[in-house]
């Protein structure tokens, strides 16, 4: 399973320009194909995707633990599990972790792994930048979480409203870690976005027009566009915050004449597109899953595509609906209120099209399908509660209460997370060559669904009956009378967390059962689901170069059309199976391309990524560290720029075997 194989014969043509490529050869290229080096220095989008997934899953568990502590604290009135200070850190980091370190990178894992496969490319446009994104994200996430051990984490809420985030009101270093950590992960997202957009625009296989792209790629593409333009906005906000906290500026100091609403605008101009950044990848995933298990094409593909793009675009015009109570004035509020309602239309289009995809199908209720249906149901609830607070006057009763907490958990957990789980079960055999257990999968699904409704469902009631969010205690005096008072619902929500936790644990059990040493799970068939889109036309798991032959695309759902033939007359389509998926794939293997060219691994991405947290620690503790980090960064950049595209024979150890001549081998 090598990404880079030993070049045997090295004639004059090595690099496209007449470069003396043997210099900067102080380091041997990391050409190992097994062991940790094959992961740390890889530029293969598939390995990078897997690492994204593993790291995101780790942070999911961290964020889940934080959530568990929050609910434990709130299970009873005047909880004593956490101090006020720790509680504030806990909910800040829970949200930050789930948004920036779980959902976004998990979506990036899917995008990294599947965009090149779905568009029929060998890799992303810039493989080394891809590795850079991964390591920057991982180092940023770890950096952010080291704050727990260095005087306490950020305690201002994930929205970090000024001026509560300034040094006076949050004297620990937590907010510094938060601001710098998000800068770092922002770089990862931005670089990744550019890389994937170029991949989608310019690396599609012949015949794959934009309107023949698999729907997941489309949604992921919209997400990358959103990231591209949203990340710089929060970057501005974070820089202002950093200058305020570390260098004495007064951007949010009211006594200096500042207007704290500046932060809110900048944050939500980023923050609202961010919501769609979180859910659109999952919309894409279930738009792949539903057709496969309904055995029908996605209903209204162009509508789903354009509604996704419309959501992305309109998402830029609604940020102030997070600020209906902040005193914008009635005209601004009215405008943003109506714009917010407008965004419900394309969202509704998606739900309608998913339902119509299922309608008339031949439904196969696999775990992936269940998660996809679960998304439709749970997200619809979240979407409808969203409409209730697009009504701005109504929102002034609901914002900052548990009703909002319920709403966005139905959107983010019910929308984004269930979709990601649908993706796990659907693509697991593609990525790892084994099917997860359906039995455990169904336990996983039902426990998660029951758990999430028990946890987040009661929050609707809590919020409408007046329990504000972000409070480390609640009091019996405000809980109301009767058995079903707020105390009861708080307890139910907390107990629900346990069910939810067990449900998620079932997934880990499933992975362990499937992959533990000595597991009896058999290898998955090449095409276990009778899938439709291009990525299934490679082997499972795919070869390092993805496709033996660069696929030529004739249709949306190319793989389906290679398996089934239309024997109908005119508009009366009637499909007959002509070849199994395995046969189609074998056919591709028989016609493998002769020229397959893969990029070589590189040290520089991980080195450059490591420079960033060093500089960030420098901002907090010592300017010398900034200089040191910058030096590492500059060194890495020059190493990067001077690195030849391919590995040299001298990079290999042991030395290359006796080279044969080209002609001889070409006939092999």
């Amino acid at each position: 399973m090598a990404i880079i194989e030993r070049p045997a014969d090295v004639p004059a043509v090595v690099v496209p320009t007449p470069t003396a490529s043997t210099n900067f050869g102080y380091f041997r290229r990391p050409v190992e194909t097994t062991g940790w080096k094959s992961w740390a220095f890889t530029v293969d989008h598939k390995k990078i995707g897997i690492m994204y997934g593993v790291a995101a899953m780790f942070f999911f568990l961290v964020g889940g633990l934080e959530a568990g502590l929050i609910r434990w604290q709130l299970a009873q009135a005047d909880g004593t599990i956490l101090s006020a200070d720790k509680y504030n850190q806990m909910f800040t980091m829970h949200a930050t972790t789930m948004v920036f370190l779980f959902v976004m990178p998990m979506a990036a894992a899917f995008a990294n792994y599947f965009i090149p496969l779905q568009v029929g490319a060998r890799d992303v446009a810039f493989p080394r930048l891809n590795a850079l994104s991964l390591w920057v994200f991982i180092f940023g996430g770890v950096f952010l979480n080291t704050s727990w051990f260095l005087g306490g984490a950020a305690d201002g809420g994930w929205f970090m409203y000024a001026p509560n985030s300034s040094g006076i009101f949050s004297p620990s270093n937590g907010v510094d870690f938060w601001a710098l950590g998000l800068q770092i992960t922002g770089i990862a997202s931005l670089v990744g976005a550019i890389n994937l957009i170029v991949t989608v625009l310019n690396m599609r296989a012949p015949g794959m027009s934009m309107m023949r792209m698999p729907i997941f790629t489309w949604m992921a593409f919209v997400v990358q566009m959103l990231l591209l333009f949203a990340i710089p906005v929060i970057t501005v906000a974070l820089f202002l915050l950093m200058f305020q906290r570390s260098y004495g500026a007064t951007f949010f100091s009211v006594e200096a004449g500042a207007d704290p609403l500046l932060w809110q605008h900048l944050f939500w101009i980023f923050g609202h597109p961010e919501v769609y950044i979180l859910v659109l990848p999952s919309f894409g995933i279930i738009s792949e899953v539903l057709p496969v298990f309904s055995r029908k094409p996605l209903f209204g593909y162009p509508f789903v595509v354009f509604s996704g793009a419309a959501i992305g675009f309109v998402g830029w015009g609604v940020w102030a609906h997070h600020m209906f109570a902040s005193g914008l004035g009635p005209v601004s509020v009215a405008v943003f209120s109506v714009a917010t309602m407008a965004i419900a239309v394309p969202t509704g289009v998606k739900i309608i099209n998913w339902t119509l995809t299922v309608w008339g199908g031949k439904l196969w209720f696999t775990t992936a399908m269940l998660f996809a249906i679960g998304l439709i149901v749970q997200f619809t609830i979240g979407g409808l509660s969203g409409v209730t607070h697009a009504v701005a006057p109504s929102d002034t009763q609901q914002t900052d209460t548990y009703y909002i907490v319920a709403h966005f958990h139905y959107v983010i957990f019910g929308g984004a997370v269930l979709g990601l789980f649908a993706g796990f079960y659907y693509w697991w055999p593609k990525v790892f060559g084994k099917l997860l257990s359906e039995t455990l999968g169904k336990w996983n699904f039902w426990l998660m669904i029951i758990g999430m409704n028990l946890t987040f469902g009661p929050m609707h009631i809590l919020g409408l009956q007046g329990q504000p969010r972000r409070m480390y205690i609640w009091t019996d005096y405000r809980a109301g009378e009767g058995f079903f008072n707020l105390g009861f619902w708080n307890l139910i929500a907390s107990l629900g967390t346990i069910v939810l936790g067990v449900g998620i644990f079932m997934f880990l059990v499933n992975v362990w059962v499937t992959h533990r040493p000595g597991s009896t799970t058999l290898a998955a068939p090449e095409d276990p689901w009778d899938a439709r889109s291009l990525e299934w036309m490679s082997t499972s798991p795919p070869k390092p170069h993805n496709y033996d032959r660069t696929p030529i695309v004739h249709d949306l759902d190319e793989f389906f059309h290679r398996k089934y033939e239309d024997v109908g007359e005119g508009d009366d389509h009637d499909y007959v199976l002509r070849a199994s998926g395995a046969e189609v794939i074998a056919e591709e293997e028989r016609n493998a391309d002769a020229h397959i060219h893969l990029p070589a691994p590189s040290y520089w991405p991980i080195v450059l990524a490591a420079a960033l947290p060093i500089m960030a620690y420098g901002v907090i503790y010592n300017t010398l560290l900034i200089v040191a980090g910058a030096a590492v960064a500059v060194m890495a950049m020059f190493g990067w720029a001077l690195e030849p595209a391919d590995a040299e024979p001298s990079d290999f150890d042991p030395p290359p075997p006796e080279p044969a001549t080209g002609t001889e081998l070409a006939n092999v």
Partner: protein
Amino acid sequence: MSDSVISDTVKDAIDIVKDHADDVHDHDVHAGDVADDHGDHGGHHSSLGLSNTKLAMWLFLGSECLLFGGLISTYMLYRNRHSANLGPDQLWDIPFTSASSFVLLTSSLTMVLAVSAATRGDLRRTKIFLTVTALLGGLFVAGQIYEFTTFYREGLGFTTSLFSSSFFTLTGFHGVHVSVGIIMLIALVGMLSKNKVSGDNAETVEMVGLYWHFVDIVWIIIFTLVYLIPA
């Protein structure tokens, strides 16, 4: 290594070599980016026939619009918030800044001439124009440093007022962008001299050029909004 692995290996190696042979003919395929020469490995079926690196650069510049937009907006919001005697009216030296602006504009001309020379394959003139561009950029940054020190001597520090913080943040960010551009120009001249640009020379020069012009257009906005329009 088992025998079969080795034979596979060798087979792949041949493929790689052949692939390079193709590259020699159409080496435009290889994105000649300073940042990443690994681009375009599917280049043979580039769906748009465009350069990956150039697409990436334009996307980056589009993204930068929102960065500078945010900084400019912050400045616009806070430009009146300063003490009576340390505001734009007292500090600006329009003739000096106009000269700086001319310098930066001129550097855009020399940059575009460098790109033009590189497209013609005229390496000598390319290097000369790049060097002049870097020098003009250096002159601009020097002017900015001079301006900052003048303001500082007059009492305007980074933390003096909201106006000063947002002014220094905005122009500082721009200055850092110019400085990064100068480093790129110098590195490019060096790499051209030693023939170490991985990828297409002309395209690499063009990429640095796009970045450089972007820095110029940001300054065009800053010059008008910040300097010429009184607070």
